[in-house]
């Protein structure tokens, strides 16, 4: 293959994309342009550029002013946002507090038939004392309300246009206030967006952004190497060298704002035993997984709180590997050699199957008998809903709102997607208290204690925080986001021109 790469270099050098267009190659096409109909990463990558949110979370993981210039907590249940004056939608209509109220209320209105109901439903009512002021009253204190406005469901839609054309027409010809405006979409082929010259944050550094679905990985990489696309997503670590070593392309990585984990989805023996679960965790050599399988592109987590999130506890050590202690605990647990089943998708997350295989063999070394079962994606999702996994399931929980509430508590609270059997009165008490408190000190202590409880009982076993790899043309200066959003703004996208 070495000769091939050499030849390839020559060709790649000859061609680069037009520098006034940014072509993004995603692994699949978008499905909807109405921002409240979709929660998939590919769709949001587009809608976060078509629309503005009140606040926006930048590459550094922090919240910044966007359509709102300032925001404050007036009292524990009341938030006030001041809108940027002079905001305009792409059709020239002004963006006012009425549009914000309309958009937010739509997200939790059962009659609106949207799919993002669980984001802003902590809101009790929204008041608009003047066109530039939005006052949001929550049902209970909600420390994450500001963060929620920067999440999906927080995109602001034009009330007048939407009411005039209706939901279907809006989805076909969307209008927002973001840095790009909708031009055309040929499904499974290309979505074309033009720069909004009047954007409040300044015109972006290109005239046009094109999103192209290129589902096949090798074709996606080939398109990047050949200069047909400028930015591609989802490069597995074993392919990164092809992109990094080519003369015109580079790799940008970011630690995923979530964790790859094994969820203990059943209470069947031996999984009902605390020492046994601890043994399972201790028997996994996470360092080796990061180094060998991921070629160093990942980090060993120290708890079920994501590094980079609020209330991450840096004093905890990375999860240890101790096969001898594991063997001892297995003895204590009276394990009789029952077979464990790990259920996983294939390619649902990068290297899910490979990691499952490695873990099965690591467990074998300490005497745990396990096997891997591969599921088709939709079967896997159905099992999530029915909570019908046989033993362990592979999962990649992400921390919505960059907070343990969106990770530890969202997933492990009663009824949560990973709450299969685990209930601990102290954990529940803390989780509830922190969810409804705007006292950051109280929350910090609560989450640190919850993280330790989680590590003791291990209802979910964190394995890895992966590095997500993007391929870019060298002349494109842009940094990926931990939450997989793709925000293209004047301040973060620069094209070097010869």
């Amino acid at each position, binding site marked *: 293959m070495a000769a091939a790469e050499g030849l*390839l270099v020559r060709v790649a050098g000859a061609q680069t994309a037009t520098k006034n267009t940014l072509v993004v190659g995603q692994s699949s096409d978008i*499905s909807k342009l*109405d921002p409240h109909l979709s929660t998939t990463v590919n769709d949001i990558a587009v809608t976060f550029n078509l629309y503005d949110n009140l606040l926006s979370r930048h590459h550094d993981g922090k919240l910044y002013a966007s359509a709102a210039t300032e925001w404050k907590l007036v009292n524990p249940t009341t938030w006030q946002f001041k809108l940027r004056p002079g905001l305009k939608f792409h059709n020239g209509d002004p963006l006012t507090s009425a549009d914000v109220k309309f958009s937010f209320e739509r997200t939790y209105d059962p009659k609106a038939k949207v*799919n993002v109901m669980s984001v802003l439903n902590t809101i009790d009512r929204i008041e608009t004392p003047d066109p530039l002021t939005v006052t949001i009253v929550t049902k209970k204190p909600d420390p994450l309300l500001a963060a929620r406005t920067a999440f999906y469901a927080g995109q602001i839609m034009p009330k007048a246009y939407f009411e005039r054309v209706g939901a279907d027409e809006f989805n076909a010809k969307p209008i927002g206030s973001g840095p790009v405006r909708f031009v055309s979409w040929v499904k499974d*082929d290309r979505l074309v967006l033009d720069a909004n010259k009047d954007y409040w944050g300044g015109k972006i550094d290109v005239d046009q952004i094109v999103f*192209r679905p290129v589902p096949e990985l090798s074709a996606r990489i*080939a398109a990047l190497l050949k200069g*047909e696309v400028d930015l591609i997503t989802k490069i597995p670590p074993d392919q990164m060298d092809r992109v990094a070593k080519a003369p015109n392309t580079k790799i940008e990585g970011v630690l995923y704002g979530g964790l790859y984990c094994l969820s203990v989805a059943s209470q069947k023996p031996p999984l009902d035993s605390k020492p046994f679960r601890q043994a399972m965790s201790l028997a996994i050599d996470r360092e080796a997984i990061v180094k060998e399988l991921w070629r160093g592109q990942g980090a060993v987590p120290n708890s079920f709180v994501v590094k980079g999130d609020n209330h991450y506890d840096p004093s905890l050590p990375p999860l240890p590997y101790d096969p001898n202690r594991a063997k001892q605990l297995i003895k204590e647990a009276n394990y009789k050699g029952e077979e464990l089943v790990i259920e996983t998708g294939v390619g649902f997350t990068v290297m899910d199957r490979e990691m499952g295989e490695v873990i099965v063999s690591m467990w074998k070394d300490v005497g745990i008998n396990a096997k891997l079962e591969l599921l088709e994606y939709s079967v896997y999702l159905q099992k999530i809903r029915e909570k019908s996994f046989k033993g362990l399931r592979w999962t990649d929980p992400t921390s919505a709102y960059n907070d343990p509430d969106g990770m530890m508590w969202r997933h492990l609270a009663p009824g949560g997607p990973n709450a299969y059997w685990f209930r601990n009165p102290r954990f529940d008490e803390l989780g509830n208290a922190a969810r409804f408190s705007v006292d950051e000190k109280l929350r910090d202590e609560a989450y640190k204690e919850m993280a330790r409880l989680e590590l003791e009982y291990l209802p979910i076993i964190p394995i890895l925080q992966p590095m997500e790899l993007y391929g870019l043309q060298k002349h494109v200066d842009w940094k990926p986001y931990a939450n997989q959003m793709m925000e293209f703004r004047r301040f973060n996208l620069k094209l070097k021109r010869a």
Partner: protein
Amino acid sequence: MQGFAGFLTYRLVRMLIALWSVVTVVFVVMRLSGDPVPLLLPPDAPIAEMERLRSEMGLDRPIYVQYGVFIGQVIKGDFGRSIHFRASAMSVVWERVPATLELAFASFLCAIVVAIPAGILSAIRRGSTYDTIVMGVALVGQAAPTFYIGIMLILTCSLWLGLFPTSGRGDWRHLVLPAVTLGAFAMASIARITRSAVLEILRADFIRTARAKGLPEFWTIAKHTMRNAAIPIITIVGLQLGNLLGGAVVTETIFSWPGIGRLAIQSIYSRDYPIVQSCVFMTAAMFVVLNFLVDVAYGILDPRIRR
């Protein structure tokens, strides 16, 4: 012509029955295979929201009621609304038809232009080096998986030589690699069938007679052999065209070609019943119409079949 009209009517009725069966099988299989609702909502969506969406899509009704409603709509040409795209399913599928036809016919053209002459020559020069090479290449073309051929073509023709774009749909240059990839299998099987069909006829008595009476070899082949060898060739050509229309899933995925095959496979994953049903119906309809045309061609070529 009475016989021929009867023959046509009989084929037409069979066509309709085939379409009805296809639609029914897809309906049942899709409903057995899983629930689309969890795919549309975030994993932590409350049960109430799932129930709401399910009843909104009519999925809470008994399956025979759903089937009745479905068949009623299909007769009117309405395949329902796409769950994923929130638009009429047939319209979403129709948007892809031009891309699929373009690719299918380009591959088809590639295939027959290369395969039929190659097969005939192979038959005439049976046992020669030429024959061995052509049949060897055909064997590889039939045996190599489509994704392998596709990726190799991208690497060689597109990345190394820079001749064609790697993927996407655009001008004719975008069409070359996917058409060759998709056409490879058809090309190989048409060449092989052509060769054996021609060989079969070349052994027949009337060919010996034609040669004996001094007819030039060209006319022996062109007139006597080809007309008689045409039935198996037309059969395989028709079948392959059907395959090209419906079987482009892998090629369309590798080359990001916005056709029906890719839409169908994505819709299967997302359990978008209306789209899957429309895609299958569309593909089945094209297949059945093709078969019908092939049957008609038989009837024209060989009057014995009409009876």
